[in-house]
């Protein structure tokens, strides 16, 4: 019982250590990791190297794959660019297995002493220090956990246990145990460390450990799909890349293992010799061989890997609508071109606004879900375009371009507020089982106004003037409607509450369309002081 408790405590400490390291590393380096990964994807070599570094730091290829998957989804880089990063991350995780094969007790003691001293000196009050102290404590707990795991089997009656294990262990059972352990722990290295401990205690032979590690390696690839529950489409493609890295590594190493046997050699003896007779080092080398062979082949066959991952997880509707169509990093070198592209992207966002509202003439099943997907997607494009404009501004542009950039930022802020308001309004309208006439009128009136905004964008100044007249203050009318609602038979019922909410959102949306019309009117763009004149108090919009 004590042995099992020791093993479980070791695993617990290992998981706490990994979690602490992951959380605090993200806090300490979050933005830098993103910048680093982006810079690394310029070539396969740098991507692979950077992935290895990230994998070694996070001690989880799953985590690196999911981070990279989110960056791909956010348009920071493509699946093809990220393939070497994922391949490298697997190699990086080998570090933990190597660490497990050496005695880290001294390091644990020193690390805990270091963290304790820094707490005593109250250095944890400084945010940056606090994060690095968290990383150090995580590392110490991780090493301590590894030591517990390695020490646990020492109390076992080796001869009896080894006999029991070897008599029941077949290659298939070894593969299955490794696979299940990796899926449960979400990590090939954790399952491999358990195998290291068992081999060190002579509970397992190298032959048995080989199949167990092979199963764990492939199992951790599959585990990525479990952890990526929220990812879909493009974001999930890297999960399949991860599985391919693991799968190809398993196939190559298994082929070599069986090839050696067919040639009349003893594969286990060769592995033992490679580890200098030390089983833990042999297992570490086996684990590294699995990651290196899979990683290098997949990086070398990037094009094919990309095709397979795209076929297995094609771009979702949300991916398609959340991809900017015009802005591109390559244009940043020429601020005028970059701002022109940002302006086109803004136009496109404006043209998508009517689709955020229900078309009550042509209601169809699934339309509400599609609108939500479009809202998410177009919000992503607004954010990406705003960031793009900020990066243009950071490049020390001329006064004229700076004015234009600030004007674009103002338009994008308004588009974002309007997107959110239209989405909220649609949700309220969709909540009605039987649509009241007032809700119908509000929805169709708003749709007409938003469609007029889109028409005006490709029209003349007169179209904008008509739109500005159309969106003039109607607070008296809406107040009358609110009073009538309060005094009606609906009283304070749920339906009246929703209608009041819809009326307020309608008023806010009309106000935002008006501000956007003023900001988009061509004269406003030509006449730079108009930028200041049209400046909208967005805090007021937010609070309204």
């Amino acid at each position: 019982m004590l042995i099992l408790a020791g093993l479980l405590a070791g695993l617990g400490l290992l998981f706490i250590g990994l979690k602490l390291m992951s959380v605090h590393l993200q806090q300490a380096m979050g933005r830098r990791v993103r910048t680093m990964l982006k810079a690394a994807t310029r070539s396969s070599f740098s991507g692979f190297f950077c992935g290895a570094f990230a994998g070694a730091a996070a001690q989880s290829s799953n985590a690196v794959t999911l981070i990279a998957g989110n960056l791909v989804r956010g348009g920071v880089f493509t699946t093809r660019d990220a393939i070497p990063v994922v391949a490298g991350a697997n190699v990086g995780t080998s570090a933990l297995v190597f660490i497990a094969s050496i005695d880290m007790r001294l390091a644990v003691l020193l690390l805990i002493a270091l963290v304790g001293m820094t707490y005593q000196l109250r250095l944890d009050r400084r945010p940056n220090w606090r994060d690095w102290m968290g990383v150090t404590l995580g590392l110490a707990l991780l090493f301590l956990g590894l030591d517990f795991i390695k020490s646990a089997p020492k109390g076992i009656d080796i001869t009896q246990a080894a006999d029991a294990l070897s008599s029941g262990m077949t290659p298939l059972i070894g593969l299955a145990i490794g696979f299940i352990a990796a899926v449960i722990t979400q990590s090939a290295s954790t399952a491999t460390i358990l195998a290291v401990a068992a081999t060190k205690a002579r509970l397992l032979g190298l032959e048995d450990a080989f199949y167990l590690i092979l199963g764990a390696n492939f199992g951790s690839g599959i585990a990525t799909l479990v952890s990526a529950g929220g990812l879909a489409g493009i974001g999930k493609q890297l999960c399949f890349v991860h599985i391919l890295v693991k799968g190809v590594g398993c196939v190559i190493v298994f082929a070599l293992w069986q090839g050696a046997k067919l040639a009349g050699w003893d594969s286990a003896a060769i592995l033992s010799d490679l580890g200098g007779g030390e089983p833990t080092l042999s297992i570490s080398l086996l684990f590294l061989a699995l990651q290196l062979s899979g990683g290098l082949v997949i990086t070398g066959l990037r094009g094919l890997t990309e095709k397979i991952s795209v076929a297995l997880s094609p771009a979702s509707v949300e991916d398609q609508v959340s991809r900017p169509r015009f802005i591109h990093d390559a244009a940043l070198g020429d601020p005028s071109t970059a701002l022109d592209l940002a302006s086109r992207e803004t136009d496109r966002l404006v043209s998508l606004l009517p689709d955020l509202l229900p078309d009550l003439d042509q209601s169809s099943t699934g339309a509400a879900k599609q609108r939500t997907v479009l809202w998410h997607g177009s919000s992503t494009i607004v954010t990406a375009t705003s960031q793009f404009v900020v990066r243009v501004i950071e490049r020390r542009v001329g006064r004229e371009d700076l004015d234009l950039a600030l004007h674009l930022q103002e338009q994008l802020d308004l588009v974002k507020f309007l997107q959110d308001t239209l989405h909220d309004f649609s949700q309220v309208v969709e909540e009605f089982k039987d649509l009241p006439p007032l809700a119908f009128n509000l929805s169709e009136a708003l749709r007409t106004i938003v469609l007029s905004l889109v028409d005006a964008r490709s029209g003349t100044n007169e179209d904008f003037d008509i739109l500005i007249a159309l969106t003039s203050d109607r607070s008296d009318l809406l107040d009358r409607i609110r009073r009538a609602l309060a005094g009606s038979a609906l009283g304070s019922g749920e339906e009246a509450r929703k209608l009041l909410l819809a009326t307020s959102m309608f008023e806010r949306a009309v106000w935002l369309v008006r501000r956007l019309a003023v900001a988009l009117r061509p004269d406003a763009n030509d006449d730079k002081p108009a930028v200041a004149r049209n400046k909208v108090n967005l805090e007021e919009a937010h609070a309204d």
Partner: protein
Amino acid sequence: MQIEREQAGEDVLLKVAGRLDTPNAKPFEASLLEVVNTTGGGIVVDLAGVVYVSSSGLRALLVAGKAMRTAKRKLSLKSLQPQIREVFDISGFSTLFEIS
């Protein structure tokens, strides 16, 4: 949807009945533009028989209204049912068109 056309002095009176929805919006807009392009006076649209107006119907009126505005002529609306009047008020059309 039915549209009846009458001459009222220099103006043209269009009596519309039925639903101004997506399927009917295009024919309605075409009828209005045909009057805009082939006559020189004002246009009065009688909406007494209209029981439903969607955004497509409103847009058709807006297109015709813009064409009349460019031609410096007047497009007015009359006899709207209360429910239809409400959507015109809420959408701001009451500020663009003379409604009687």
